[in-house]
């Protein structure tokens, strides 16, 4: 009789222990997965006369003009790498014609490589063997230069206005939880037939200067896929431009890509010859 009771008690204790341990284990991870900046309860209601689409266009213009020149340094961190990989490049972007050109300057192994985008196609030039190839669909989702951007991102990043519907969610008070200044929070919903897998993008756009501050990409089930933070906002030719971009993918542990822009030139005039496959092979 004694033994039976002991066993029963023992079993109960064991059950409690298991419950306690599970709860204990669950708590920290629960805490991890809640990002305070995701909560929209903090937002103030938006002013009624502000058109979210206009705000989106202003944000777009904070990063690009019709013809933009950019020189930048990209740092890639990954658990695979013992030290971060640093890529320096210059880019010429022609927005109305949907074309752009990127020349890689560093590291030494990649110096001279180049990319030419003539929407919707992307060509890649590799220096040592002096060959050019067009990137097919199967390669479009591969990382660009090893970063957390894909080749597809490069080609399609100009469609955020036309391919999306825009909805104003509110105004972030700029208390440092998500961003440091007052910002409109706008939801970008892709059109039904838009060739993107995102379910939605939630963007923070500064009220004062209309600068892109933060972007969160979600899949259709509402899972956050990646976050892009924009910082170091400085004025260039009347535009307030973020010079530091940080990309954090949420499905790859320990990965991040940082872009530090050293030079921005807006409203440039570009030589037509830049956007040709011939230019890929030039040493410039």
């Amino acid at each position, binding site marked *: 009789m004694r033994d039976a009771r002991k066993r029963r008690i023992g079993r109960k204790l064991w059950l409690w222990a298991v419950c306690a341990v599970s709860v204990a284990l669950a708590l920290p991870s629960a805490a991890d997965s809640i990002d305070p900046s995701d909560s929209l309860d903090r937002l103030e209601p938006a002013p009624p006369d502000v058109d979210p689409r206009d705000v989106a266009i202003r944000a777009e213009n904070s990063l690009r003009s019709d013809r933009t020149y950019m020189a930048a340094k990209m740092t890639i961190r990954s658990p695979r790498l013992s030290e971060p990989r640093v890529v320096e490049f210059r880019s010429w972007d022609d927005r109305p014609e949907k074309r752009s050109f990127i020349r890689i300057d560093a590291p030494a192994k990649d110096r001279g490589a180049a990319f030419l985008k003539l929407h919707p196609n992307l060509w890649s030039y590799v220096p040592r063997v002096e060959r050019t190839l067009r990137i097919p669909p199967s390669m479009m989702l591969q990382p660009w230069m090893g970063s957390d951007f894909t080749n597809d991102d490069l080609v399609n990043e100009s469609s955020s206005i036309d391919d999306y519907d825009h909805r104003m969610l509110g105004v972030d008070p700029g208390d440092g939880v998500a961003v440091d200044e007052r910002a409109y929070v706008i939801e970008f919903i892709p059109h039904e037939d838009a060739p993107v897998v995102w379910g939605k993008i939630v963007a923070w756009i500064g009220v004062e200067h209309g600068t892109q501050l933060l972007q969160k990409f979600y899949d259709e089930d509402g*899972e956050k896929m990646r976050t892009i933070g924009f910082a170091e906002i400085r004025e260039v030719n009347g535009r307030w431009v973020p010079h530091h971009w940080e990309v954090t993918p949420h499905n790859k542990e320990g990965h991040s890509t940082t872009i530090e822009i050293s030079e921005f030139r807006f409203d440039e005039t570009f030589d037509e010859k830049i956007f040709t496959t011939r230019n890929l092979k030039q040493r410039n």
Partner: protein
Amino acid sequence: MTSLRIAWRNVWRNPRRSAVVVTAVAVGIAGALIAMSFNYGMVVQMIETAIGTELGHIQIHAAGYDANPELRVRMPDGGERPEEVLTRNEGVVAFARRVRGEGLVVSPDASVGVRVVGVEPKSEAAISIVADSMTSGHYLDGNRKRVIIGERLAKRLHVDVGDKIVLSVTDMRGDITGAGLRVGGIFHTPSAALDSGTLFLPLVESQHLLALDDAISEIVVVGSDRARVDDLEGSLASSLSGLEVKSWKQLQPVLDYMVTVFDQMGYIIYGAVFVAMLFGIANVLLMTIYERVREIGILMAIGMPRSRLAISIVLESLIVTLVGLAVGFAVTLAVLAALRDGIDLSSFAAGLESFGVGQRIKPVLRYSDFVVPTVVAFLTAAVASGWPAYRATRFRPAEAVRHV
């Protein structure tokens, strides 16, 4: 005929012994027939799956497609000319137009290279089993932006009905295009290959995506009898010069071989059964004649010709075998009628589906399947009785009569 009557009476003189022989023959024939009918059922399923999901009875392509199955080897007029010919041809029961390409299907979780097939829902449903194989959602309908994919592909992509996917292809001009589409339905066919690697979408959408204008890649044709497809192929090929016309046998010769191999195996099995029965019948007959030595002696003594004697022994053998054959056939038909819905081999699903065979195997019998056993039975009877009949005729009447 006296020999026949004598033979018949002899057979039933020892009912239990005859019954055992009849049973042996019946078991052998029935067993072989039933086993083979299921085996053939598998082969038939394999063929029908391939035909019902991909091949149809006949496929028509632009010239050069066999050597180079590329997007640009297409029928620019959308198949107008062949369509006329097909509608007029009496051997054609149904046909459907298709566009074939390759692409990448992308979901938030994964990207998979797939074969892209643009179809016209109504005509495709008439020639393909995919329309009847939907497990969730529904088949293609008027909505241009809906695609259907197989269960295995859906699992790999972690998508369900209603989820959005991006289809990325290289179109006719060589440009990369993508389209945002939604999964309208998920299917499950006996073909693992189809379920894991093919995406179906409306023809017009595929033409738009691939910049094909009105062009199509192929026309699938179904006739009345897949076995007599060669005639249809011949008549179509002659009226459709300039296009490639191929029957399913030419498109996948392996399937046709399967039937031949199966038939050959059948001969071997029957051969074994034949030899097995041979021993049994021969043994019994021998015993019979030695039992009836005196009787045979008397018969010979009163003037029965030896030939008649031999014939009656052979007839005995034949009767027993034929009765066994009849019983065997009856048992076969009864068992197959009971099992006509097929046997469930779901625990072997993965293996079967890699060959394009479903989980339920239905038995299939052809008229010709009854011919071989009959011939085998006759042969067995004849051969088995040969030696005993010969021995019987060698009895010396004088000695035989005095046998105890």
